[in-house]
C-alpha cells in the first residue's frame, strides 16, 4: 500500500496475476468492439451524411451472413471468458489443504481477526508471505464484505454462516483491507490493512504476542464456565475427535462436523440433533459472541480431528454431493453406540496449529 498515484493495482498474490491476465484479455476484446462500433458509426455517418434534404437512399437488403458473424464472434469470445473466469472462481473457492486458518469476525464497524496460535488483532492482519492463508469469516450483525484489492479477493461476510476465502501473498508490504458491503454509518471506516511479512519476521511477531492466549485455551475456559463440561462426556456426546467426522443425526441423515455444523450445534442445537439424544442442550444464541464461538470451536478442534480415512463416503463423493444424503457408513462408532468414546489423548500437548496442519 503506497499512497502514490497508480492506474493499476499492485499484484500481491498468486490470484492477482490470474485475475489481471483475464482482465487484460477482456479489456482488449472490449477495446476492439468499442473501436469497431464507434469507428463504423462515425465512418458511416460522415461518409453517408445527408447532402440534400430530399435524399432517399435505396433499400439495402439485410445480410444474414453478417448477422451470424456478429452473433458468432462475440459468443465464442464469451465462451472463453466463461471458462477462464469460472476456473478462477472455483479455484478461489477451494483453499489448499495446507492453508493456515485465521478466523475473522466482522461487526459494525471493525474486523476482529484471530490467529490459531493466539494473537488477536483488530483491523490489521499479519500474515507470512508465500503461505496459503484460509480465512473463515462470519459476522456478528449485518452483512459485511472482506476484500483485499491487491490480492483480488473479496467475500461477503454473512451473519449466521461461515464462509471462507483464501489467498497466498507473494510480496511483503502493507495492503488495504476494505469492507465492501454497505453495513451502516461507518461502513467507510471498516477498513484496515494486511501486513505481509517474511516467515521469519512473522514468527518473531508471533512470539512477541504472548499476551494473547491461543483460541483453544480460551475455548476450554469457556467450555468450563458456560457449563458445557457438565453435560458433554456424561449426558451428552463426547466432543473428542468430532471435528470433520461424519455425524449421524436423529432424522437418519449424516453430516460432516465442520465449523458450520459446530457453530449450529451451539447456537441452534435443536436444528440437528445427534442420533440418540434428545433436545436438551440449551441454545447459546445471543449469549456467546461470534468470537467466543470461534474459541469454542477451536477448542473442540483441539480435541482431535477426524481425518479422511474415517470418512470413506466423502472422498469418493466428489464436490457436488451433499454429504448429508450420502450412505451412512463412516460415522464415529463412539457416537453411534452412544457411549463415552475411548478418547485419544486430547491434543493439549500438541499445539492446535499442528493439529490443523496434519496432512
Amino acid at each position: 500500500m503506497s499512497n502514490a498515484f497508480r492506474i493499476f493495482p499492485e499484484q500481491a498474490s498468486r490470484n492477482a496475476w490470474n485475475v489481471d491476465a483475464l482482465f487484460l484479455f477482456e479489456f482488449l476484446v472490449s477495446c476492439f468492439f468499442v473501436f469497431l462500433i464507434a469507428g463504423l458509426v462515425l465512418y458511416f455517418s460522415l461518409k453517408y451524411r445527408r447532402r440534400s434534404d430530399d435524399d432517399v437512399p435505396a433499400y439495402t437488403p439485410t445480410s444474414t451472413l453478417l448477422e451470424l458473424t456478429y452473433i458468432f464472434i462475440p459468443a465464442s469470445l464469451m465462451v472463453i471468458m466463461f471458462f477462464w473466469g469460472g476456473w478462477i472462481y472455483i479455484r478461489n473457492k477451494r483453499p489448499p489443504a495446507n492453508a493456515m486458518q485465521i478466523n475473522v469476525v466482522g461487526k459494525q464497524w471493525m474486523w476482529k481477526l484471530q490467529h490459531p496460535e493466539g494473537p488477536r488483532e483488530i483491523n490489521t492482519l499479519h500474515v507470512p508471505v508465500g503461505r496459503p492463508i484460509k480465512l473463515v469469516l462470519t459476522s456478528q450483525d449485518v452483512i459485511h464484505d472482506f476484500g483485499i484489492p491487491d490480492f483480488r479477493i473479496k467475500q461477503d461476510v454473512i451473519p449466521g454462516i461461515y464462509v471462507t476465502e483464501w489467498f497466498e501473498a507473494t510480496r511483503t508490504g502493507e495492503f488495504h483491507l476494505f469492507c465492501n458491503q454497505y453495513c451502516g454509518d461507518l461502513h467507510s471506516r471498516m477498513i484496515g490493512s494486511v501486513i505481509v511479512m517474511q516467515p521469519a519476521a512473522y514468527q518473531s511477531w508471533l512470539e512477541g504476542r504472548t499476551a494473547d492466549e491461543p483460541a483453544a485455551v480460551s475455548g476450554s475456559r469457556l467450555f468450563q464456565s458456560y457449563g458445557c463440561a457438565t453435560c458433554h462426556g456424561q449426558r451428552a456426546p463426547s466432543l473428542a475427535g468430532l471435528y470433520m467426522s461424519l455425524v449421524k443425526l436423529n432424522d437418519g441423515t449424516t453430516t460432516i462436523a465442520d465449523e458450520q455444523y459446530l457453530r449450529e450445534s451451539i447456537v441452534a442445537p435443536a436444528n440437528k440433533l445427534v442420533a440418540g439424544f434428545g433436545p436438551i442442550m440449551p441454545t447459546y444464541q445471543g449469549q456467546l459472541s461470534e468470537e467466543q464461538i470461534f474459541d469454542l470451536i477451536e477448542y473442540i478442534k483441539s480435541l482431535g480431528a477426524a481425518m479422511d480415512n474415517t470418512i470413506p463416503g466423502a472422498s469418493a463423493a466428489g464436490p457436488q454431493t451433499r454429504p448429508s444424503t450420502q450412505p451412512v457408513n463412516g460415522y464415529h462408532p463412539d457416537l453411534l453406540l452412544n457411549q463415552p468414546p475411548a478418547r485419544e489423548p486430547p491434543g493439549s500437548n500438541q499445539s492446535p496449529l499442528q493439529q490443523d496442519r496434519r496432512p
Partner: protein
Amino acid sequence: MSEHLVTETSPHPVEHQFEDRYQQKEASTLGMWTFLATEVLFFGALFVSYTLYRHQYPDAFRQGSLELKWYLGGINTAVLLLSSFCMAMAVHAASVGSNSGIIRYLILTIAVAAIFLGIKATEYYIEYREQLVPALNFSLAPPPEQQLGALTASFGRFDRWLATRLHAEPLPDGPRSPNEKLFMLFYFVMTAIHATHMIIGIAIMLVLIWMARRGKFSREYHNPVECFGLYWHFVDIVWVFLFPALYLLRNP
C-alpha cells in the same frame, strides 16, 4: 368527446377508444389476465420463500402444521370452491343477460365468502389463544389447557379425539421448536394476504350488485362481472395451494 360509459338507454356502451364491443371485451379480459399474471408472481414469491424454509426446517414446519386445525381448513376449502361455483353461475347469469340472476348469485357468493372469513377468524382466534401468533404472543411453551378458554380448549380436545380416531399423529406435547415461529409467520402472512384479497373482492361484488340493480348489464355488456369472476376464481386457486401447503404437512 364521448368518453364516458353511455347511459343505460344505450344497449352497447363502448368507450370511445374502442372500435366495437368485442374489442372492448377482449381488451378487458386480456387486461384481467395480465393482472392475474402479476398476482401469480405476487403469491409465487411467497410460496418460494415458504418452500425454502420448509425444506430447511422440515420438523419445525411439520409441527407448526400440526398446530393448525386441518379440518377447519378443509371445510374452508370446500366453502371457497362453492363460492367459486356461485361466481361462475353469476357470470353465467350475466352472459344470458339476467340482472336478477347476477344479483342472486353474487349475494350467494358473498354469503359463502363470509362463511369462509368467519371460519378463518375463528381459527385466528384459536391460534391467538394458543399463543401461536408471532410478534404478538408466540411462546415456545404451549399454554396450559385451563388458560385457553372454553372454545379453544374444546377444539383442542376435539383435535386429540380426531387424531386417535384417524390413527393420525397427534400434536406432540412439550415445547415448540423455535423455528415453528417462522412457520406461523408464513401462515399468517399468506392467509392474511389471501383474506385481504377476499375482502377486496367482496367490496367489488357489492359495487357490481349495485350496478346490476340499476340494470347496467346486458347480454352484450357484462365485462365487469366477467372480469371480476376471473379475479375471484384466482383467489380460490391461491387457497387451493395454500391449504395443502400449510395444513397438511403431516408426514415427514
